[in-house]
């Protein structure tokens, strides 16, 4: 009897322990979110995911809180997912039928997801009160989130890219800081005077090095998205793309390994968000407007300016390649209308005055000229004259984006390889472009249904 009791007690104990263990695991797996929950009857609960972290999480959370405060019938709960695995988390949640209601995307996945019907077509909601959204955005902003003529990613905050120049290094190199480069030829000549490389090959100062994305130089060489993709396949070996790649190839005279190490080493030293320009170690640098608050944080005494990237012959002046943050509504959401209301509000539609005050908190460029013209945003621009050209280039009809295709992510990955080949002199520009073109077209073929 005692033995029977002992055995039964053991089974019951084990079962209870397992149950408690599983319950604890499930509870512990709940994401740590900023919770301002309201479970009143009739309040629609929305889940919103983004990939921001650190101070950006707080900036975006304030925006979500502002929406919740002004929309009593909807409550949005925000979750910050790791940026390295954000899309994987979104994919698995869509596959599991448990996707968030809204997701902010900054990687080129819009077309890949849209092709698989994983995102809602936002055009269906742009009726009635929201019909004006079709013409709300800067034309180039709308393009990035549009696939086959339909919008799947609503533009939220935009990025443009200009050429920063270090006035102190220019003076030290015998250049006139009041005369930053206005052409690619001048940039090439000026930056050559600014390099500092020791006899043992150690880089201590960079003039200019095109280590950022090849796409960012598209408008400067007159390259358009239509030049690169003709609707059915990539056509990367065109003369304008070749000219752009030839420009990059000139820089293979500088030691690739040492320059990469210099740039990444400085970045790694301070948590990955600092580049050589911010630390006063680069004469010229292409980057977005977010560089400005980082300079203010890490090197407030830096003497610098920013101008549109100078054009090459045949290229366009005062333009920029554009990307940004886009809000998507995954398929399967239970509250598509409310989700659309949320992302339309974030985009500043109906509340441009709020957006004009909120966007500068993230150092972001508006998606619409209506927001740019608001007094609050103009005040922000006037507070630092360096900021103005980042926004003024948004009006240029020659602004460009990367072609929107289902293999955009693969295209970008292979673009990095192509740049590496060219900057190291391993392949000629023609061979590198051809390799890239064949690679992405093969991928496009593998992906098509």
């Amino acid at each position: 009897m005692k033995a029977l009791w002992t055995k039964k007690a053991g089974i019951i104990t084990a079962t209870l322990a397992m149950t408690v263990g599983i319950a604890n695991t499930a509870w512990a797996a709940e994401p740590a979110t900023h919770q301002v929950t309201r479970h009143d009857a009739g309040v629609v609960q929305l889940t919103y995911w983004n990939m921001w972290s650190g101070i950006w999480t707080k900036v975006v959370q304030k925006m979500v809180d502002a929406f919740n405060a002004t929309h009593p019938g909807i409550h949005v709960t925000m979750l910050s997912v790791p940026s390295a695995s954000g899309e994987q988390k979104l994919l698995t949640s869509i596959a599991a039928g448990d996707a968030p209601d809204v997701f902010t995307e900054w990687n080129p996945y819009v077309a890949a997801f849209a092709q698989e019907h994983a995102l809602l077509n936002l055009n269906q909601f742009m009726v009635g009160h929201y019909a004006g959204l079709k013409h709300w955005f800067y034309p180039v902003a709308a393009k990035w989130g549009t696939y086959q003529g339909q919008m799947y990613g609503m533009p939220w905050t935009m990025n443009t890219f200009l050429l920063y120049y270090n006035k102190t290094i220019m003076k030290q190199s015998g250049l006139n800081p009041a005369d930053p480069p206005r052409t690619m030829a001048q940039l090439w000549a000026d930056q050559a005077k600014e390099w500092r490389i020791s006899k043992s090959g150690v880089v201590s100062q960079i003039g200019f090095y095109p280590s950022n994305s090849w796409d960012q130089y598209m408008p400067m060489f007159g390259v358009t998205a239509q030049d690169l993709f003709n609707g059915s396949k990539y056509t990367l070996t065109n003369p304008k793309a070749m000219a752009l790649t030839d420009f990059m190839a000139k820089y293979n005279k500088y030691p690739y390994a040492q320059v990469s190490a210099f740039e990444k080493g400085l970045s790694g030293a301070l948590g990955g968000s600092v580049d050589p320009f911010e630390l006063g170690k680069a004469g010229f640098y292409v980057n977005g407007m977010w560089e400005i608050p980082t300079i203010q944080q890490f090197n407030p005494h830096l003497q610098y300016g920013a101008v549109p990237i100078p054009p090459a012959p045949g290229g366009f002046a005062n333009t920029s390649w554009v990307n940004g943050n886009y809000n998507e509504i995954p398929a399967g959401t239970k509250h598509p209308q409310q989700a659309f209301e949320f992302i339309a509000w974030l985009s500043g539609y109906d509340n441009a005055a709020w957006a004009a005050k909120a966007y500068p908190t993230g150092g972001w460029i508006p998606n619409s000229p209506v927001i740019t013209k608001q007094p609050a945003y103009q005040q922000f621009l006037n507070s630092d004259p360096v900021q103005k050209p980042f926004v003024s280039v948004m009006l240029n009809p020659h602004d460009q984006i990367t072609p929107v295709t289902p293999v955009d992510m693969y295209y970008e990955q292979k673009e990095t390889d192509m740049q590496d080949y060219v900057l190291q002199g391993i392949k000629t520009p023609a061979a590198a472009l051809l390799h890239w073109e064949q690679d992405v077209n093969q991928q496009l073929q593998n992906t098509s249904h």
Partner: protein
Amino acid sequence: MSITHNVNLPQKPSQRSRASRAKTRRNRIVGWLFLSPWVIGFLAFALYPFLASLFYSFTNYNILSPPQWIGLQNYQQMVQDPLFWQSLYNTLYYTVIFVPASTVLAIAIAMLLNQRVRGQTIYRTLFYLPSVVPLVASSVLWLWLFNPSFGFIDAFLRALGLPAPGWLYSEVWVKPSLILMSLWGIGQPIVIYLAGLQGVPQELYEAAHLEGANGWHRTRHITLPMISPVILFNVVLGMIGAFQYFTQAYVMTQGGPDNSSMFFALYLYQNAFQYLHLGYASAMAWLLFVVILIATLLVFKSSARWVYYGNEQ
């Protein structure tokens, strides 16, 4: 333990047999109940994904749409994919160099740590410590050490007037850099070899010493044969781990420069989660499984020639 009260009462043979079977059945049920958490976990999180990936390897699957059966196309595509061959080469390069190097180094260090010297415990701790540092943290640390501009290693080499390679930023040096980093973290095999060394009977060494054997003879004919089962264990585990090398490449190089550190597992990951080619990635996973299986079987087959289990004549 018996749960009957009437064990001492006389029973007919059929009654005893029935009672015995009932008892066995009860014990079996209890055993399965205790095993069930592990079994459920194994079925749900190991066996099912294992078999599912085999199915997906014959499909075009991007997780967003249902898988479409395409037969052997993924495997055919692998053969024609230059980056597949590059990743396989990079992984084999790493495995063929790292596994033997780590084996020799770990045995040598274990033999040193087996010496009775002052501070033995401190030395053992120091050699083991790197293996408890999380991989991601150690990757960030080594990013610094290997930096040609700011890193300690190149600064030291330059101070000695020696050439300072580009390490992780050089196509030629990136794989040796990662191998060096991995050799820094061989604390676990060292500890296992140390345990093996301490199991070698001292009488053998004494007898050999009396016979005039020197240090090398004792190592060659006593130590190594006696710890050969441990060597086999570590070689197999090391090989399996080397074939699946991923974290350091993902954190430190992302496969660059020029795919010279694009390892098989990293390329598999990119295909699965960046390019949304889960079918192709599943095919790669199964190929990796077969390669590891064949390599392991070859090592086991060869072990008949060099592993000594102590009870052999």
